[in-house]
């Protein structure tokens, strides 16, 4: 596997910056000739993770998050990594919502990370050197 860094952005982890992050992603995916369907799925995955970080990583201050896009063109894989220095938190430890219960029992919330797991081919989390690193891998 050989991933080449395509682009990266370091930005305040604030939901006000969501549109900037999505534009950054969309511009790069267009350059990579990503299919529209895959692009929408990756936009969704990136929104969910970015908003999670913006909401939970820095409870008392504004902190930064770095979003990096890498591609393995031989394997047709895109890798998107989020790195923040906020509170250690592994979103993959959260149990999946039960999507097979009637509407009265469905919990409102908890769907974001579940969607990311379903849409991506692989997801990873690690806490390393004081940073949360969350990675999405998607075949394109």
């Amino acid at each position, binding site marked *: 596997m050989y991933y080449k860094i395509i682009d990266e952005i370091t930005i305040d982890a604030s*939901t006000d910056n*969501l*549109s900037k992050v*999505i534009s950054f992603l969309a511009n790069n995916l267009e350059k990579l000739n990503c299919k529209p*369907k895959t692009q*929408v799925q990756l*936009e*969704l995955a990136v*929104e*969910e993770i970015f*908003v999670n970080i913006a909401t939970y990583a820095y409870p008392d201050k504004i902190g930064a998050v770095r979003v990096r896009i890498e591609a393995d063109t031989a394997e047709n894989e895109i890798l998107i990594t989020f790195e923040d220095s906020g509170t250690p938190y592994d979103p993959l430890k959260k149990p999946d919502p039960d*999507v*097979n219960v*009637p*509407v*009265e029992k*469905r919990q*409102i*919330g908890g*769907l*974001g990370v*579940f*969607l990311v797991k*379903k*849409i991506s081919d692989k997801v990873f989390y690690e806490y390393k050197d004081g940073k949360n690193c969350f990675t999405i891998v998607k075949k394109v």
Partner: protein
Amino acid sequence: MTIDIAKDKNKVTMTFSGRIDTSTAPKMEATVKDNIAGITELIMDMKQLEYISSAGLRILLSAQKIMKKQGSMTLINVPDNIMEILEITGFTEILTIL
């Protein structure tokens, strides 16, 4: 995102276009809240909807919980990419989709 509202006695039709994401979901939530008191039929026309994230799904779920008590809620003209998200999250089982 824009939402057009058409009212006919106890029936409200909301026509969505654009993107329902974390930025636009509060507007959707407010529009739903302001328009469903006392109605018995809510139609959500999704034909022009391009994108929905979990922020929008949460509002669909809470609207469905309310409408189940007072009448019905139906989604119509759902595009394929939106339908895929509804299927993954099990929403196709709890929402009425025509």
